[in-house]
Structure formats: C-alpha cells, structure tokens
C-alpha cells in the first residue's frame, strides 16, 4: 500500500485516475473502470480494505491512531488475446483500493491518501463469437445455462460455458451501440495496441465466415501462403506454420492441391 499525504481524491473519477496511475495504465479511460465495476464485490472486500488501511496507517504513524475516511474500489484490467481452443479476449482485473483517510494521533491530525491492490484478480474470458453476438445484439443465439440477479452463464458451442456479470454484458451492449470495437479497445490505452488487430481480425473473419463461400481444400492451389494461412487457421502460430511449410517444401509439388499439401506438411511435421 502506498501512502501519500493530502487528500488526492474527492470523487470516484479522481480515485479511478489515481488507481490507473498507480497501476501504470494512466492512459486508460475511466469508462473501462465503470464497465468492469461489477467484477468488484465491495461486501467481500470491506474487511480486507479496512485491514489494509489500518496496517498502512500503523506502519506510518504511532500505534492505534483513530481514523475515519472514504474509499473506493477501482478495477484495473489487463487485456490480452488468446487463440487456443477458441479465440477469445481475456480481461484480467485487479482491484485497486483508493482511500482518503483523516488520521488523528495524540498530538496531531493528518490527511492521507492510500492506494494499493487488494483481493484476488478476476478474469473474464470473452469468446470472439460472444463479442460478435453482443455487437450484433444477437445474444439469443446462445442458450443460458443459469441466470441469477447478478450473473448469467452462457453456453458457447465448441467451448466451455462462460459466466459474465449481467451488468458487464448490458453495459458492453450499450457501448457497442455508440462505439466501434476499435474505439472501445482504445479506451484501454496502450495495452490495446497489440490486441486490437487480433480482435478486429477475428471479428472480420467471423463476419465474412457466414457470407464467404468456402472453397474446398481439394480445389485450392497449393501455394506457400495458402499453406501458412491454413495452418494458422488450425491454430498454429505464424512462425511455426512458416517453419513447417519451409521444412516440408522439398516434398511439395506445384500440381498438388492444398489438401494434399497440408497433409504432406502435417505428416512431415509429425515424422520429425
């Protein structure tokens, strides 16, 4: 817990800014914290928060000073994209405590601001198909396995069920009515720069998946680019796919179909 003199926050917005600054994501928008506020269980965190504040105060001032104050819980997310199993956006959220405390010692009084992480990190797995459904306002395509006043568990075909706070889904639906995915991801600041092309690409792929006519692999030409793309579609990383194609290239011929080429590459990789 960092403790600094003075009242550095008097509102939730200022507390959010302070928490993001402390976490090194100062360019993140406060709207992100508002979106993820449902990941924070204030009731569960209250005891820990008071304990952390007392510990911070006792660490700086004499034993058992009296204190009173106001504090906020700010979710600080970390964004990442993963393609394994099913492509998804991963949001890992830590809770940052921002407390403005009035301390009274035997001979003096002080105002301090305490900032630090408490509780366990919460992780949200947002499959791309689910994100696309939110964008299209078409969540009805997924069936609900269970629903409470705060959370809903959704069945995702081909993947494990995912549970989301209802508030998160509702807010995200409203956001996509006003913003594009690119704009929404830019709210996350610098960390969204590496994630945005992946998310946008996934969503574009999903969008065109329904409209594009699939060309059978047996009718496609066996070029190195097509082979790499096919292997990437099979969740091989790009570099690994290129290396696999490069190693199998002595066995490939120009009159091979793409299907034959892929089999040769995979057999060659398995043989190694």
């Amino acid at each position, binding site marked *: 817990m960092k403790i600094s003199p003075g009242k550095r926050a008097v509102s939730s917005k200022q507390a959010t800014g302070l928490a993001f600054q402390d976490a090194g994501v100062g360019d993140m928008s406060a709207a992100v914290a508002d979106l993820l506020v449902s990941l924070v269980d204030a009731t569960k965190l209250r005891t820990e928060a008071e304990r952390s504040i007392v510990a911070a105060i006792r660490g700086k001032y004499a034993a058992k000073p009296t204190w009173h104050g106001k504090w906020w819980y700010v979710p600080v997310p970390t964004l990442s994209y993963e393609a394994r199993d099913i492509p998804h956006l991963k949001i890992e959220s830590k809770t940052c405590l921002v407390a403005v405390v009035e301390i009274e010692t035997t001979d003096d009084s002080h105002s301090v601001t305490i900032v630090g992480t408490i509780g366990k990190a919460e992780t949200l797995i947002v499959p791309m198909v689910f994100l696309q459904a939110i964008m299209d306002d078409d969540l009805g395509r997924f069936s609900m396995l269970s629903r409470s006043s705060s959370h809903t568990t959704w069945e995702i075909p081909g993947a494990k069920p995912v549970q989301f706070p209802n508030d998160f889904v509702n807010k995200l639906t409203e956001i996509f009515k006003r913003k594009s995915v690119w704009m929404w991801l830019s709210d996350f600041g610098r960390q969204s720069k590496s994630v945005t092309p992946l998310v946008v*690409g996934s969503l574009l*792929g999903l969008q065109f998946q329904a409209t594009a006519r699939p060309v059978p692999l047996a009718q496609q030409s066996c070029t190195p680019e097509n082979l790499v793309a096919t292997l990437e579609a099979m969740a091989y990383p790009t570099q690994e796919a290129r290396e696999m194609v490069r190693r199998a290239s002595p066995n490939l011929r120009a009159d091979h179909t793409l299907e034959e080429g892929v089999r040769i590459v995979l057999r060659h990789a398995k043989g190694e």
Partner: protein
Amino acid sequence: MNYEFTLDELKEVIRTARVFCPSFGESQYRDLMTLGKRLTDSGYLEAVHLIVRLEREKGIPPARALDACDQLLAVKEQLEGELGDLKQKLAAQQNANREAERRFHQLNQDIEKARQELQTIRAERQREEKELLAFKKKAESQRQRIDEDVAQCRDKARVTEEQVATAGQLITEVESRGFTLTLLLDLCQEFAGHENAREELSRALIERHTLSNYIANLKEEGEIQKKALKLDSDRLKSEKDRSQAEVNSLEEARCQLQSALLQLQADAGEQEQLREFYRRYHGVSGLMECLASWEQIFFLRCNNPVSALAGVLNRSAGPARFWMDKPATRCPHCGLTMLIYDEEAYKVLNCSVGTPLRLQLGG
C-alpha cells in the same frame, strides 16, 4: 479517429480473420475500408438509400433505375403542368378560406357584441328590479307609517274609524240634500247659544211677523251698537294720544336734566384737578417766577467718572447736576471741566440737548 492499421497490424488482422474465414484477403479488407469511407459520405448513403427505396416502394430493380428515372421525369413534367392549375385552385380556395374566416371573425364579433349588450340589459333589468323592490318596500313602510299616523290622529281626535265613516256618510247625506257642511256648522253655531232656539224663533216670528223683519230689526240694533262702540273707541283713542303726548314731554325734560347733571359732574372734576394743581405747585411758584426772569437756562451735569462710580454705590454721592443762565466751564462741585448737558431735563421739556431755554409762564 484514425482507423488505419500499420502494414504489420494489417497482416495480423487478415491472418486472424482467416482463422474463421480462410478466404478473407487484403482486397476484402480494402473493400471494407473503402466502404467505410464511402459511408462517411452522406451523398453516397443517400443514393444507396434512394435506390433501395426505389426497389422497395416501386419494385424497380437497380438495373432498371435509369429507365425508371426517365419515366418518372416524364411523369414529373406532366405533374408540374398540373401543378400550375392546382396552385391556382389552391390560391382561390385559400382566398375563399380567408373570406370565410373573415366572415367567421365578423360573426364572432357580432355575437360577442350581442352577448355584451344582453349582459348589459340583464344587469339593467336586475338593477331596476332591485329598485322596484326597494320602492315597494319603501311604499309599504310609508303606508304603515301613514296608517300609524292616521291611528295616532284618531287617538288624538278621540274618534274611531266608525265615527269617521259616519262623518263621511253624514257629509254625503248633507250634500245630497243640497247643503254644505260649512253651512250646516254655521247653522249649528247660530243656534248653539240658544237653549230653546225653536221657541225663540217662533216668538220672534210672532213679534215681527216675518223672518225678514226680525233680521232687519236685528241689523238695525246691530248698527246702533256698532256706532256706540265706535264712539267709545274714538274717545279711548284720543285719551290714549293725549297721555302719550304727556309721556313724551316728561321724557324730554328728563333728558335735559340728565345732560345738565353730566355737565355739572364734568365741571366738578375739572375744578378738583385745578385745586390739586394749586396745592402741589403753589409753593414753588416763586422759584418759577425767578427762573422765568432768566434770559436763558442751561441744564448741565458733571461727567466725573469717580462721581459716576460713586453714584452707583450711593445715589447722593453721584455726579452734580446744576442749572446755569450762561454756558459753564467748570463743575461748581468738584471744579473739573468735564461738563455735559443733562439729557434727562431736556428730554422732559421735549427740547434738543444744549438748546438755550427761556421759561415762559402763562398769563
């Protein structure tokens, strides 16, 4: 907002898209970007919207849009021709509407005016009804008051209503017989002093034979008595005039005596004043004679400040006063030359200060 990716990012986008759509390529992405840019152009969207609308509303496919447009233009030209007539009709109808509206306003104004007049008449009627009611109440109260007055008058006259009715009947009866009530009352008065008027009248008729002789005799006696009364009256009047003349002469004598008495009282007062003057000034008459023998008299006083101061404390030690027959230069008392005229003496004699005075006594 800049939606452009870098080249590496673009490759990554396409590669990721191919996970779900292997046929997705850069050309599709470019098409998307182009579409995005076009969507920012409102004219493009409007054109697309119009073509879609044309297809939906008119059932014209986009390929036939131009032919349909030519056809619609021709229709438009025809409709514009009709539009002129419709505009004229519209203008005429608008004029008619305005005229109707004006009449409607006029009618409304007339109705409003009539309504106001009706209200005025109603108010006036109510006011007159109130006045009539008040008048009725007043008349009723006056009638009651008159009834009360009549009753009081009856009480005062000690007559009853039946008596009044009887009197009315009596008057009617009298008038029906050719008499008047005054005549009847005079006759009653005539015979009232006679206890047995009928017998007296019969006796008089017996003595004088006729009523005319009796009346003539009465008149003659009356003339005699009138003359006697006139003589007595004249005699009393002359006695009264004589007495009045005596009273007037006595009054004149009284006034003369009173004025003589006032004159005598005034003479006595003057003589008393003279006696008092004589007693007061007879002792100094010699001094007055002596002063009258002087050619001139000067009234002087010493202006010694020491004497003036002493005079404040003791009047007898004050500055010396003295009369001279010549202008003096020194005080005969203290010998100082500080002399001034005695203003008090000159003021008593009503002369200007320092004027040489000669005392003149009366003969």
